């Protein structure tokens, strides 16, 4: 009986399908293929995102059933000095890290573009850290920053009788010390993208400018930078999001006291991680996540608007 029904249903469907014009069929096929990634993506990304919004209004701790608590988590967040500290840290990573990394990457790309000798090799050297696991890099840097007798930099300083620096063990030096490694690790990627952008600018523009007698500085200001804008916009947004989400470097370089000393290097993502997976305070962690999401959204939109092409 069921057999009969399926066959009976299928027959008219076949006739409906035959009636569609080729164009419609193509669209249907396209959507059929697209549906799979869309459903998958929606399921693993958007559904949990909305779930996180909901969890942020509960006191869920994994073990006991969640209870609705209204804005309690957000209220706690506003009055938590630890949160404002990580907030400040996160923006320090962003406001110093992103511009510095872009300027350095541009300078490297600008001059590397003119180097013919061993160009590929030098480019590979810059790109290498980007290919390496962040955790492995962080541990090497952690060793480099150690005090004497094992630290590389301090060992060097000590040979010249210069007092050793505390680096990761200091509340003032630790954040910059970690930021340097994050900038360095992302540099290769930015250099490659800038190089591609520079190569995409037609040589004829430069030739015309030189014939007109423009100096190098003027060429840079009037031709290179304006034409490089799409690349710059992409990198600004990309590296800003990267610095707002910084985690690996900090966690691996301060794993004895994650985000320390005294929370001076802790970014918001690390706070979320600790709230969720060592205190199991999922509701509070979700509220922090929502705040991070909002910041990322605002910063990205703001940058797209500021750097939009007129």
């Amino acid at each position, binding site marked *: 009986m069921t057999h009969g029904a399926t066959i009976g249903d299928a027959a008219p469907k076949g006739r409906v399908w035959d009636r569609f014009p080729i164009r419609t069929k193509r669209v249907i096929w396209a959507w059929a293929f697209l549906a799979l990634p869309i459903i998958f993506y929606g399921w693993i990304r958007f559904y949990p995102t909305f779930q996180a919004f909901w969890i942020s209004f509960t006191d869920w701790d*994994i073990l006991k059933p969640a209870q609705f608590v209204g804005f309690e988590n957000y209220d706690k967040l506003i009055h938590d000095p630890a949160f404002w500290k990580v907030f400040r840290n996160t923006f320090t990573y962003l406001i110093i890290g992103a511009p510095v990394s872009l300027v350095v990457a541009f300078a490297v790309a600008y001059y590397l573009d003119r180097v013919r000798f061993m160009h590929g090799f030098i480019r590979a050297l810059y790109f290498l850290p980007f290919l390496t696991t962040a955790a492995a890099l962080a541990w090497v840097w*952690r060793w480099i920053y150690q005090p*004497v007798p094992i630290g590389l930099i301090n060992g060097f300083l*000590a040979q010249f009788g210069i007092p050793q620096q505390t680096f990761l063990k200091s509340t003032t030096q630790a954040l910059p010390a970690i930021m340097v490694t994050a900038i360095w690790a992302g540099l290769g990627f930015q250099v490659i993208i800038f190089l591609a952008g520079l190569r995409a600018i037609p040589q004829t523009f430069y030739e015309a400018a030189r014939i007109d007698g423009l100096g190098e500085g003027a060429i840079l200001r009037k031709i290179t930078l304006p034409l490089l804008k799409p690349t710059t916009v992409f990198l600004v947004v990309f590296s800003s999001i990267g610095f707002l989400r910084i985690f690996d470097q900090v966690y691996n370089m301060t794993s004895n006291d994650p985000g320390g000393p005294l929370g001076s290097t802790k970014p918001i993502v690390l706070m979320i991680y600790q709230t969720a997976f060592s*205190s199991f305070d999922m509701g509070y962690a979700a509220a922090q996540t929502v705040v991070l999401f909002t910041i990322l959204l605002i910063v990205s939109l703001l940058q797209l608007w500021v750097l939009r092409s007129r």
Partner: protein
Amino acid sequence: MRNRFMLAGLAAGISLLTLGAAQAVEIEYWQYAYDTRVTAMDQLIANFEAANPDITVKQTTFPYDDYQTRVIAAKAAGQGPDVLQLFYGWLDKFQSGGVLQPLSTTAFPHDQIEADFFPIVTAMKRGDDYYGLPTAVRSLALFYNKKLFEEAGLDPANPPQTLDELVAAAVATAKHDDAGNLISEGITLDMAGQDHQWWREVLTRQFGGVPYSDDYRTVTYGEKGGTEALKFYTDLQTEQKVGQAGFMDEGQAAFRGGMAAMTIDGTFRLGSFRTIDQFEWGVTELPANADGLRSNYASYFANGIGSSAQGEELAAAEKFLAYVSSPEAMQIWLEVVGELPARKAAALTDTNLADPVLAPFLKALDYAQTTQFVDEAGQRQVAIDMANRVLLEGQSPADSVAEAAAAEQAIIDDATK
């Protein structure tokens, strides 16, 4: 001919079925990944399976950092293990979250537990029920590098027995370069290691205080003892300059590398330190104060039965738990992992008490305290920050201790509300 084949097939099928029934019980055991612990457990499982051919035990391990999350997530998904290892300090969380089931009093009578195990076993009791039994217990002691002691003109056979002697030995063994940088520590300072336990349960008491109220729900180190204890601790870096937080990253690394004359660490470090071959080291009890008062911190990982184990699996889990808490299992654990047996009779043997390495740890079990943490990581962080405020920001020990006491009280109140 064909019939005979069918008969043979049928017979084989039936015998397979019955075999299957006899071997039906498989239980799952979880612990965190640590080489010697996994090896020891493999041995225990092999012995147990040989004695109980109808039970198989499957061991699953996770990295320590993920372990609690995995247990809790598995409970949320309804797929928890039958027997699992847990730190005594996680019990509140696991018990209130329903991860564990209470041990049945018929399989594990309370009077026997309390007569046979060291008294710290009561940290596994909530209300009228026990929720787990330890195989091994751990305590702290002072490790010292005999080579560095000799070089400094100290007698390696007479390690420091009091706090004053400790400081004197540290001053004698610490080395600095011309610029004044510390290049070899007298004693390691590592709050993230075991020093927070030393400060909390040992130094605070030796300086006349008590760290917590009896039920561990009220922080009392802020009232008395805590400040003096913290000052003693931070002075080692700021005044005597015999140690430095973060030197060679971790205290145990500095000691292993022969760059620290003394370090305070636990029994669990024995396995790792036994592989040192550049120098000889010794162990002694944690130093007493001027009045001869000693204290120590003892802790343990216990094994409990998961709340999902029922029927046959529960019976098998109980048998397995009984075996891994037996004197035989404790002896294997001692040999492989180096941790002390949790049963008095198995621990306090003449051989163990004559062992120069084990004896200091065993003696400590007589006077050791077991802090009841509500959030071990959070409470440890409070102690780390407390020392850092003094060492890095120049805050006075009194203010720092007061701030720490308030922060820790907030953690406890939050967890027990």
